[in-house]
Every structure is written in structure tokens, then in C-alpha cells.
């Protein structure tokens, strides 16, 4: 679309940095002014079709959603295959689609390093977390963490962990969405953010988990089919030979054959390992992902979910890789997509979008743009539902009402929270428009890995864990992660504009995870109270349930 080739004042890359931990320096966020594009009608019509379809599903889901259990877990009747797709839909954000293909486009092999990091957490979730989580939990991961511990402190800690992760992730998604939609559809930033907010409120508030699940499934199918088509078209141009594709890419890329090996993305070994830890264990601590395990009937389906999710996500990352290289050969050097200086119009994050035009014309460009929008919606819906459940189930029903809230009241609170969260997300999205938000998802992963994951892990595996240990150790992990990021290069220098960072590392996980694991361990061992005794004794019963599923939540009858 030549309208796209109007000058765009975007910085080099964009949503990538908004969503990929540690990418700030490598890619730079969409900063400052992004010039609005001419309205893209093909994309808008396709997007409207998606909205109409998903709102129809929401209407249907709303009629099925009668109890709190329906609202939080879709009644527990989602199959392993469906849940696998929905997890993939929850996890594959627009940022990973556009961001990783942009990263491959810019530096080749380095993009693969990130893809792998985002994937390898999944097998670990399956081996260590998934089935115990399913057997012990009901609606939120805090159900599991607080299974034999004091409800009040542990639920409060978990809700803090959940809400921080959700808030950081939501802001990053909102700002990314606003800028992306401005670029793709030619809509105003504010309008874009409000549309995203309104739709996510509608899905979650009326359709609960059932609608959210189907939005995620549809989005996953659309994204996977679109990306498959692009990758196949790229390979078709090169006789399905990777060697030919790579050779052509090294011939046109400014970095030449350097794109075929690890480059400067990961320099400091400690930072590299720390990033690896955050990606791997952060995934196992993301509340909106953990929540998906309660939507299936039993441990067997929970396992299948991870199997399918890992397959879809892995396949998706291989596709984004081909797409990145496809963009190098088919987009780079094409005057339709590049500025006079040879840079990509709209920044590197547009690599996959331009490629869609190059391989499939205006119609396919519209399709991919609509899919990118749908992708954002699916992710924010999952996040909102998870945030709402932390407030209504953990804080309201279990802490304030001490487990005596009625189903009806709990649902009412969760719907109100959804509305509040949606409105807050829109305001934050607008407030952070011009801010550098590159650190946010990185911090979210680090917090998930340093608060949610350690508490969850100990509660399932270590008999001697006590409430005090989990509470103080968990907050220690949270404080360490936040402090290291604030005083590190991404916030202290890039956001606050100081000369040099107080802490040299970009990725806090290696320190904050250590702090949490050590803290919980020491505080638990020091705890000799009567209550601690009871908590340790309760482990045996919890253990039987976690291993066999005896007493676990079943699926609803309908």
C-alpha cells in the first residue's frame, strides 16, 4: 500500500522493545511521535469481522457463564487441545510476532536466541508445575500457594505479584497497541487505546473465561495460518532451500554474513544467564498463563495442554524466523517499503507487515494487520481476567470475606474489577504514550520469576515452607527485582536520564531469584511457631492430592 510509504517518524524498532526483556538497547522502543497513517480500509473491515465474530461468541459465552467457576475457568471443561491453542494465543503477543521478526530482520541469528528463551520455559512448566497446579488449585495460582499456609498473607503476596505483573504487561500491551494501530490502521492513538480497552472489558466482563478462551483460540489460529502463509511464500521464492534464502539474505544485509552467527545482542555472560532465567522461570510464574490450567478437566488434560502449546509456540517461533529472513530478502532494498536512506518505513517492527504486502498484496496486508490487532486483544483479555481474579477471588473472597463470600458476590466483584482494570489500563496507556516502556515486560518476567514462581515452587515441593518464609522471602524477591531494574541501565539511565547506572546489569533475575529462594528458605527454617508446625504437617495431605488428584476440583456438569 503506497499510502504506507508516507514518511513515518518512528524510531528504529518499536513494539519489540516494548515487549521483549532486555531488548531496549538493541531495538529501541517506538518513541516520540509516530505519524498517523492513511486509513487502511481492508484492514478495518477484516478487523470489524473479527470483532463481530468475537462479540457473538461473547454473547453466547455470557449465557453459559452462571457461576464464579464458569467465570474464572469456563467451567473447567476446555479440552487439552483447545487449551493448548488458547495458551499459545495468550502467549504469542503481537510484540513477539512483530518484535522477533524485526529482531531477525535486524540481526539475524540473535532473534533465534530470544525465541528459544521464550520457548524453553514450557517443558519445565509441564514437568514440575502443570499437574500439581491442576490438582491443587481452583481459580488462581494463589489457591495452590496458600493451600496449607495462612490465607491472608499468602493471598495478599500473590495478589501483589499478580497485579504488578499484570499492570506492567498491560501497560506495555496498551502502548504497543496504540502505536501499532496508529501505524496499521491510521487511527488516532487515543481512539486505538479506547477501542482495545472497551473490547477487552466486553469480552471479560460478559463472557469471562469462556469468551477469553475462544478469542485466544481464534486469534492463535489466525496468527498461525497467516504466519504459515508468509513463511511458505518466502521459501517458495527460494525453491524451499534455506541455503538459497540465507545466501540471498547475506548478500543484501548491511551486516553481511555476520547475521548468520550470534552478534552483539548478548554480551555480558551474567546478563545472558540472568535473562535466560527470567524467560524460563518467568513463564512459569505468569498469572494469566497459570490460570489457564484450571480451565481443563484434570491433570491429564493439563499435560496435553502444555504439549500442544509447546508445539504451536515452537512452530510459531520457527515461522517468525523465516519471516524475518524473508523480510531481509523481499522487503529490504524495495523502494516501496524503504526510505531514501534505506531504513524500513515505520521502523523495523514493520518488517513482518511489509513482508505480508510483498508476498500477498493489499488484501493479505489487511489480513495481517487485523490479526495483529486481534492478537493484542486476546493477550489483554487474558491479563485482565487474571488481574480481576486476583482482586475478586484472592483479595475479596478469601482475604476480606475469609472464604465466606457468596458465588454471586464474588462474580459481581470480579466484573466490577474488570471494568475498573479496563478503565485504568486505558488511562495508563494514554499516560505512558510518550514514556519509554521498554523495561516493563522484562520487569514483569523478572517479578514473575522472583515472586510467583519461588512461592509456588516451594509450596508444592518443600514440606518445611511456612507462611512467614513465603511472605518475607517473596517480598524480598519482589523488592530485589524492582530495585535492580530501577537502579539498572534500563530505568536509571534510559528513563530517568542519569549518566551511568548504579547497577550494571540489565536483567535482575539471577539476583532476585536467588534472593527469593534463599529468603524463603531461611525465613521458613527460622520459623518455629506452632502455626509453622501445623503447616508442615499439612504437607502430607497436600502431597497426596497433588500426586493423585484425590479431592481436586472437577469440571462443571454442563
Amino acid at each position, binding site marked *: 500500500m503506497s499510502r504506507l510509504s508516507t514518511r513515518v517518524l518512528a524510531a528504529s524498532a518499536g513494539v519489540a522493545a516494548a515487549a521483549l526483556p532486555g531488548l531496549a538497547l538493541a531495538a529501541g522502543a517506538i518513541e516520540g511521535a509516530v505519524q498517523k497513517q492513511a486509513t487502511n480500509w481492508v484492514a478495518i473491515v477484516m478487523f470489524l469481522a473479527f470483532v463481530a465474530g468475537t462479540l457473538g461468541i461473547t454473547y453466547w459465552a455470557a449465557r453459559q457463564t452462571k457461576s464464579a467457576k464458569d467465570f474464572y475457568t469456563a467451567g473447567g471443561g476446555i479440552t487439552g487441545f483447545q487449551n493448548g491453542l488458547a495458551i499459545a494465543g495468550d502467549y504469542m503477543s503481537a510484540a513477539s510476532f512483530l518484535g522477533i521478526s524485526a529482531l531477525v530482520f535486524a540481526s539475524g541469528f540473535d532473534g533465534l536466541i530470544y525465541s528459544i528463551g521464550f520457548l524453553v520455559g514450557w517443558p519445565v512448566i509441564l514437568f*514440575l508445575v502443570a499437574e500439581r497446579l491442576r490438582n491443587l488449585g481452583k481459580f488462581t495460582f494463589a489457591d495452590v500457594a496458600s493451600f496449607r499456609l495462612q490465607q491472608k498473607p499468602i493471598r495478599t503476596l500473590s495478589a501483589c505479584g499478580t497485579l504488578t505483573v499484570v499492570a506492567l504487561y498491560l501497560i506495555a500491551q496498551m502502548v504497543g497497541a496504540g502505536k501499532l494501530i496508529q501505524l496499521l490502521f491510521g487511527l488516532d492513538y487515543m481512539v486505538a487505546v479506547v477501542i482495545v480497552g472497551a473490547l477487552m472489558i466486553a469480552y471479560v466482563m460478559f463472557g469471562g473465561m469462556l469468551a477469553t478462551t475462544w478469542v485466544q483460540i481464534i486469534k492463535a489460529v489466525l496468527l498461525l495460518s497467516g504466519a504459515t502463509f508468509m513463511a511458505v511464500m518466502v521459501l517458495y521464492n527460494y525453491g524451499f532451500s534455506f541455503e538459497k534464502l540465507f545466501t540471498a539474505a547475506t548478500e543484501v544485509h548491511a551486516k553481511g554474513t555476520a547475521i548468520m552467527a550470534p552478534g552483539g545482542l548478548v554480551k555480558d555472560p551474567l546478563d545472558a544467564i540472568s535473562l535466560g532465567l527470567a524467560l524460563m522461570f518467568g513463564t512459569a510464574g505468569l498469572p494469566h498463563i497459570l490460570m489457564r490450567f484450571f480451565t481443563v478437566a484434570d491433570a491429564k488434560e493439563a499435560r496435553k495442554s502444555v504439549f500442544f502449546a509447546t508445539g504451536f509456540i515452537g512452530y510459531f517461533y520457527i515461522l517468525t524466523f523465516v519471516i524475518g529472513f524473508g523480510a531481509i530478502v523481499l522487503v529490504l532494498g524495495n523502494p516501496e517499503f524503504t526510505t531514501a536512506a534505506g531504513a524500513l518505513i515505520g521502523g523495523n517492527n514493520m518488517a513482518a507487515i511489509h513482508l505480508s504486502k510483498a508476498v500477498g498484496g493489499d488484501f493479505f496486508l489487511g489480513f495481517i494487520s487485523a490479526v495483529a490487532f486481534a492478537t493484542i486483544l486476546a493477550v489483554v483479555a487474558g491479563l485482565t481476567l487474571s488481574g480481576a481474579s486476583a482482586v475478586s477471588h484472592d483479595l475479596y473472597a478469601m482475604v476480606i470475606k475469609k472464604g465466606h463470600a457468596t458465588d454471586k458476590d464474588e462474580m459481581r466483584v470480579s466484573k466490577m474489577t474488570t471494568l475498573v482494570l479496563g478503565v485504568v489500563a486505558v488511562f495508563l496507556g494514554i499516560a505512558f504514550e510518550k514514556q519509554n516502556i521498554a523495561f516493563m515486560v522484562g520487569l514483569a518476567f523478572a517479578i514473575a520469576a522472583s515472586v510467583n514462581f519461588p512461592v509456588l515452587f516451594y509450596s508444592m515441593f518443600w514440606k518445611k515452607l511456612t507462611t512467614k518464609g513465603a511472605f518475607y522471602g517473596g517480598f524480598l524477591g519482589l523488592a530485589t527485582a524492582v530495585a535492580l531494574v530501577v537502579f539498572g541501565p534500563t530505568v536509571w539511565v534510559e528513563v530517568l536520564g542519569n549518566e551511568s547506572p548504579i547497577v550494571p546489569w540489565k536483567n535482575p533475575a539471577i539476583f532476585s531469584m536467588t534472593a527469593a529462594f534463599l529468603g524463603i528458605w531461611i525465613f521458613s527454617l527460622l520459623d518455629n511457631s506452632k502455626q509453622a508446625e501445623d503447616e508442615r504437617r499439612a504437607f502430607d495431605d497436600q502431597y497426596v492430592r497433588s500426586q493423585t488428584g484425590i479431592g481436586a476440583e472437577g469440571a462443571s456438569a454442563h
Partner: protein
Amino acid sequence: MSADINEKVRRNPKFQELCQKRSTFAWTLSAVMLAIYYGFILVIAFAPASLGTPLWEGATTTVGFPIGVAIIVSAFLLTGVYVKRANGEFDDLTRQIIEEAK
């Protein structure tokens, strides 16, 4: 769930067997995944050039690519291996334990 059933389950040797077998299996597979991934990260951190070796003489494709794709595929295969055994052998054992506890 009464304390009785729990006690019965705990005393069932099959329960011990299940827990022991499953935890060995799960930790072994986790260790394999961690070793593969951190092995890869360490190579990137300390010997990045080695991944840039051409796959064969004169090739543009470097060894890093098949290795990277192999890691992605191995993650998927490992989950498959676990699910197959857990949904078969381990679930059968679990069913027997639950039956016997009734």
C-alpha cells in the same frame, strides 16, 4: 477427602512407586532441558564464533541454525515424551491407587 483415605494412599506401596518414578522422570527431563538451554546460552556467552561455523565448506548456513531449531524441536519432543508416559503408565497407577483407597 478424609484423613483416612489419605492415610491409606500414603501406605500403598504403589503410591510410593508412583511418586518416586514420576519425580525421577520429571527431574531428569527438566535437567535435560536446562542443560540444553544453558549449554546454548553459555556457548553464546563464551564462544559465539563457534556457532558461526559454516555447515559445510562454502555454505552460508551456519551450524547455529540447525542447533537452534533442534533446541526448539527438542523442547516439543521432551514434552511429548513426558505426556506419553504420564498419561499412560502414571495415570494407570494413579487410577489403581484411587481404587484401592476406596
